[in-house]
């Protein structure tokens, strides 16, 4: 018995470096992603520009709430232009690319994503002067990309394309106001399908989200299958007067969940919200 105990200790000790390695695993980034997205460019690592908030262990791998918090204001002469979000170990690591403007007020962004396995989530901010700053967060999740497509698929299909804006606080002119955009879309990864009975043939997901205020862009996103069903984004905008928030969304359908070579354009949806401070 005693011997067995010693052995399990030994086993645990042997395992530990492996686990530690999993958390600090930079292989996907160093060997592939860095060159794929930033070939020949230098990317500094720091939490001074943006930082990621995410649960260390995800309750539901298909619906992991993450928040990117910016540490610098969106000034006219110095601002975060773009944030690329990647999940290293997802079958298709690209989550989305999110463009902000000084009219965004703050380059904060909250959304729900799919995480397929224990992985780093990384966000790379590109400043308007071209400087690249990366932050990352390790999340324990499993099976987010092949997970069942929502609890009630028919209900989801019936509401497909429905959208709503939610602004919960009184809108203040001249300062950043928080807005939430809810998009009803199953955002099918194409990885749920069964080889025998193909009920769900292809990936079918939101590929573009454009939010503007009085026609000035606030948030422009190119998104992919790692966005959870019923995409949900929270972001800021600075109104200079009363006006209209507008969201324009387009989806697509691709033959393979992990290649974007053969895709067909889908439908477009739009929604507006009148802001009266």
């Amino acid at each position: 018995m005693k011997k067995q105990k010693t052995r399990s200790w030994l086993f645990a000790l042997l395992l530990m470096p492996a686990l530690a390695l999993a958390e600090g695993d930079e292989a996907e980034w160093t060997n592939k992603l860095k060159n794929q997205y930033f070939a020949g460019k230098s990317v500094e690592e720091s939490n001074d520009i943006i930082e990621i908030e995410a649960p260390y262990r995800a309750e539901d791998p298909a619906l992991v709430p993450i928040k990117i918090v910016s540490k610098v204001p969106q000034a006219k002469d110095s601002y975060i232009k773009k944030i690329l979000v990647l999940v290293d170990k997802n079958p298709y690591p690209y989550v989305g690319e999110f463009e902000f403007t000084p009219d965004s007020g703050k380059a904060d962004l909250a959304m729900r994503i799919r995480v397929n396995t224990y992985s780093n989530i990384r966000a790379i901010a590109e400043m308007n002067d071209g400087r690249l700053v990366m932050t990352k967060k390790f999340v324990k999740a499993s099976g987010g990309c092949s997970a069942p497509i929502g609890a009630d698929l028919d209900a989801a299909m019936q509401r497909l394309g429905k959208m709503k804006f939610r602004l919960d606080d009184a809108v203040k002119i001249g300062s950043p106001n928080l807005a939430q955009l809810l998009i009803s879309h199953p955002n099918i990864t194409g990885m749920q399908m069964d080889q025998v009975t193909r009920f769900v043939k292809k990936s079918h997901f939101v590929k573009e989200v454009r939010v503007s205020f009085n026609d000035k862009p606030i948030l422009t996103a190119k998104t992919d299958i790692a966005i959870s069903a019923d995409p949900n984004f929270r972001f800021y905008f600075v109104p200079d007067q009363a006006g209209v928030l507008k969201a324009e969304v387009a989806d697509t359908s691709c033959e393979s969940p992990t290649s974007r070579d053969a895709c067909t354009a889908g439908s477009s949806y739009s929604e507006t919200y009148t802001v009266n401070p």
Partner: protein
Amino acid sequence: MRFLFALILLASSACATAASVLSVTEVAPGVYVHMGVHELPDTKNHGAIANIGFIVGERCVAVVDTGGNPEQGKSLKLAIKHITSKPVCYVINTHVHPDHIYGNTAFKGAGVKFVGHEKLARAMATRGTYYIDKAADQLDVKLSASDIIPPDIGVKDHLDIDLGGRTLKLTAHPAAHTDNDLTVYDEQTDTLWISDLLFIEHLPVIDGSLKGWLTELKTLESHPYKTVIPGHGPIVKDWPKSMQPEKAYLEMLLMEIRAMIKQGKYLEDAVEIVGYSAKGQWRLFDQFHRKNVTTAFAELEWEN
């Protein structure tokens, strides 16, 4: 030590070759149930956690859920042989969850019809790959696509099946616990095999529609069944009394999440706050509650 190891090896290989007879209880005349355990499916219980069983007619037997792994399916088959010489003619799957369908393979054969909700086949197809991957990691059960057996007969609304002198009335429900829940009513004994529409002691798990589930409970509550067989928990002889804790939990979620949405709170806030007053009342609360809040929140945020 080595001797012990050899013994374990022997025991496990014996397990793999000859399934043991599953213990079952006759809860009403001709209605047999194997009582599950309140555990998370894992590599020790191999997913065998749910209440499963069978109903014997004059001509043949209907199996109601087959268990959490192929071995448990075999054990259930042996239990049936132990009790009756009548053949199995129907295998009813009450919904898509692994603890109810992974024993299906044991019953495949001539003369056996698999029956499920009309949406069960789609649910099996969309979840199949994911389930098979997870079975190896989480249950230490080796499964292939051929172990996920879709129904031969899909039930839309209602279907009566005849076991010879005994009619089972099957009802396909709108989305509730899952989007493919099927209940089995045995007229002869006034028994409702409600399966996972009812959890007792084990925290209810939402994988369909919170609102839909409450609607179904309201309808079912008005009928005074003599015996009700839940998917998890003891046999009910005082329906609808034993169902009240589940209803109260689901109603609380509905109320508290609606209130949070109205206050402009987000999902991340809701999972930290909603429903914790029920924590002491349920087994496996920590394992399923946050997931329930997440699923329900995603449903309710689309209410107008």
